[in-house]
């Protein structure tokens, strides 16, 4: 009998991609070199079936990131214990390298909107979210990464800039930051703020993962659709960010209008090049 299966860790010099069902067969057949595969945790909450069987197969070849979309970390409701225990069971089964959630809310008063909704950034809300992130980390027995989201509305009661809010959350709870560079840019354009100011507020040591994705220009502003190639402005921001942070596991997100696997791998290769440049610059600076 072979030794116990050892879960894989992401290779920070390479990009990862989101694992989506239409790509299962092509990925399994070709097994391209990727740092990691990221899935939406909720899509694997069932007690059985093909999706879970595929994921168990993929975890033998790739590091896995469980990215949750439903925990409603910022809700005024009590934490959803059932949701959390399903996540906990999945994490025990898959042994992911990374577990992440969003800095947002998606349900209140028992009503489920199933969407990543924005929070006001105030001291009261910061204390609330910190308490809940700590509860989640205690229940899962591990630190999680928390991602900044795209938002289309802001609140009059917000008193703390988003970057400071995220940095303070990481500082107080020990959670990591999943830095979504596209979301930072979307918010900056939509709200007339400065993406670089947001990114500069984040302590590099707390960043455990980076996301880039494509969005869409509309009369209402930039919409984070995850349905298009990454914008040039976002690639430029990624270059700056990685130059400051050094290589960090970076994911290309693509959820709607899913292209052929090759298109997605092409985007990942472009992120690989940015990661390699950042690593090279670091080595030169150290020499």
């Amino acid at each position, binding site marked *: 009998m072979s030794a116990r299966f050892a879960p894989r860790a992401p290779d920070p010099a390479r990009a990862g991609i989101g694992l989506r069902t239409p790509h299962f067969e092509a990925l399994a057949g070709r097994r391209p070199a990727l740092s990691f595969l990221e899935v939406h945790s*909720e*899509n694997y*909450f*069932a*007690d*059985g*079936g*093909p999706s*879970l*069987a595929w994921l168990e197969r993929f975890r033998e070849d790739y590091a896995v990131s469980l990215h949750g*979309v*439903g*925990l*409603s970390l*910022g*809700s*005024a409701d*009590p*934490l*959803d214990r*059932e*949701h959390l225990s*399903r996540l906990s069971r999945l994490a025990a089964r898959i042994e992911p390298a990374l577990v992440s959630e969003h800095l947002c*809310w*998606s*349900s*209140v*008063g028992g*009503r*489920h*909107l*199933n*969407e990543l*909704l924005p*929070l*006001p950034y105030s001291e*009261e*809300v910061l*204390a*609330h979210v910190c*308490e*809940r992130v700590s509860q989640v980390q205690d229940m899962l027995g591990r630190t999680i990464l928390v991602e900044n989201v795209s938002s*289309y*509305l*802001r*609140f*009059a*009661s*917000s008193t703390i800039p988003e970057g400071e809010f995220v940095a303070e959350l990481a500082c107080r709870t020990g959670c990591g930051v999943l830095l979504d560079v596209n979301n930072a840019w979307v918010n900056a354009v*939509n*709200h007339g703020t400065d993406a670089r100011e947001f990114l500069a507020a984040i302590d590099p040591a707390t960043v455990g993962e980076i996301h880039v994705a494509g969005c869409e220009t*509309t*009369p*209402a*502003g930039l*919409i984070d659709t995850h349905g298009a190639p990454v914008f040039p402005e976002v690639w430029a921001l990624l270059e700056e960010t990685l130059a400051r942070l050094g290589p960090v596991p970076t994911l290309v997100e693509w959820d709607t209008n899913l292209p052929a696997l090759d298109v997605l791998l092409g985007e990942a290769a472009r992120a690989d090049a940015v990661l390699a440049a950042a690593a090279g610059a670091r080595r030169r600076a150290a020499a």
Partner: protein
Amino acid sequence: MKPVPALASLQARFADAVLDGGDERLAPLLAGDPGVNRRRLAVYRDAVHANRRETLRGAFPVVARLVGEGFFDEATKGFGWRSPPACADLNRYGEGFPAFLAAYPHAAAMPWLADVARLEWAWQESLMAADEPVLDYAALTGIADAEPEGLRLRLHASVRLVRSAWPVLAIWEANQPDRDGTPAREEGTDDVLAWREAQRVRLALLSPPEADFLEGLGRGLPLGEVCAKMDGRDFTGMLVRLARHGMLGGYSVEGAAKA
């Protein structure tokens, strides 16, 4: 958890504005230009509905194809108001959609539509049912010899039966992606068996006695009772078929359950 009344009230107003329309009570809480905010609130409204609609399209692709885009958009909107998602995992959303369609006045001219939806939901349930080992046939040998009439066979978690007064399987097959929607049959009262085998969902048509027999097994009746639903040869054939395709998950004798 310390209560956060200001946040609870803000989120309740946000949810009202997104789900029920109107932004009078939310607008004063927002920063920025009111006109822009109104357009952006609509982005969230669109997203909430589109997430529900696309989730339902994933679970009910044949219904979506049968009724077309505009009808499906309206029907899923109506269903969302009547039965909004009860949890954060949208993969479990849609259980009540067949019943909604059965009572939907705009679908009255398509009386078979709700049954097509029932078949699609059975497919989904079968797909997501728990993995479980198949029945331990070796252990069953002795029991089968001694007390066969009292033996109760338990169906595998993925087995579902849909009984319809319409040719639902023919409609379903005609609306798979590679087909043009013309059914091979226009007649039939289809009893359709769904189960998962080697991680694929499979569908098969049953005869009415076979469906009665399977319903009996599902209700936990002993073999001594369910065998009367079919003649001898069909009875053996059905048990062999269930075994060959991994549709049996366990058994029990006189209250002593086995796996």
